[in-house]
């Protein structure tokens, strides 16, 4: 039995692509995902962007991102099919669930360690609004510098 994983699929189509052609491509992608019992969690259209390098004759492209929850076999199939579509200039599938889980664990760990450290110092676990503000303009050297220069001018 294959387990459900999270993938991000990005593909680039030429900017002159009509909306219908793009919609057609998206329904094709949806059809493939449905066949594997997968779900599309999110779809983003980034619109027209300049490519960092030329791909074939293209300098610009329309980026489309899908976040898909599905099995590993889906990716092989998607990869194969997207390679065949002439419309797709470039595509990329990345597995993200493990990385996001690691990031989430790190975030939770940091938060709990910060809270415990604060409690040990006798502070409330969450930083208050006033403390946050003080953290922000902590390393401001500009005032100091100006004061010094002004003093030397005065001596002269």
């Amino acid at each position: 039995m294959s387990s459900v994983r999270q993938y991000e699929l990005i593909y680039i189509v030429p900017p002159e692509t009509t909306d219908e052609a793009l919609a057609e491509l998206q329904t094709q992608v949806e059809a493939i995902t449905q066949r594997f019992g997968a779900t599309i969690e999110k779809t983003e259209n980034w619109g027209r962007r300049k490519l960092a390098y030329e791909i074939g004759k293209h300098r610009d492209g329309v980026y489309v991102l899908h976040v898909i929850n599905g099995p590993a076999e889906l990716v092989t199939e998607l990869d194969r099919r997207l390679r065949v579509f002439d419309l797709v200039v470039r595509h990329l599938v990345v597995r993200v669930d493990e990385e996001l889980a690691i990031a989430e664990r790190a975030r939770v760990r940091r938060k709990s360690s910060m809270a415990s450290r604060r409690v040990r110092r006798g502070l409330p676990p969450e930083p208050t609004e006033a403390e946050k503000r003080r953290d922000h303009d902590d390393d401001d050297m500009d005032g100091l510098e100006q004061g010094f220069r002004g003093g030397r001018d005065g001596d002269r």
Partner: protein
Amino acid sequence: MSDEREGRGGGRGAGGRDGKDGKDGKDGKGRRGFFRRKRVCKFCVDKIDYVNYKDVKLLAPFIPERGKIQPRRISGVCATHQRALQTAIKRARQIALIPYTTD
């Protein structure tokens, strides 16, 4: 936070120590201590756990003009985050968000 890293070459921070007797004669010796600045990992400071390959603005400071990945010894990124940054940059290159090389 980020402006602390920008003036890396400037070395204003450690200046006070050598400044007093650092005339021309001692320049060669004192220079290293003079210009070195405490380098910090941007990702640790900003508490970025996931280096997102889709975020060009995040990756851009670590890609010098030539398009290569900036080494850790220059950027000051910690080993963990450099590894994450490396994969992120390589992914971004594949999907043409970042150049492999420029001219």
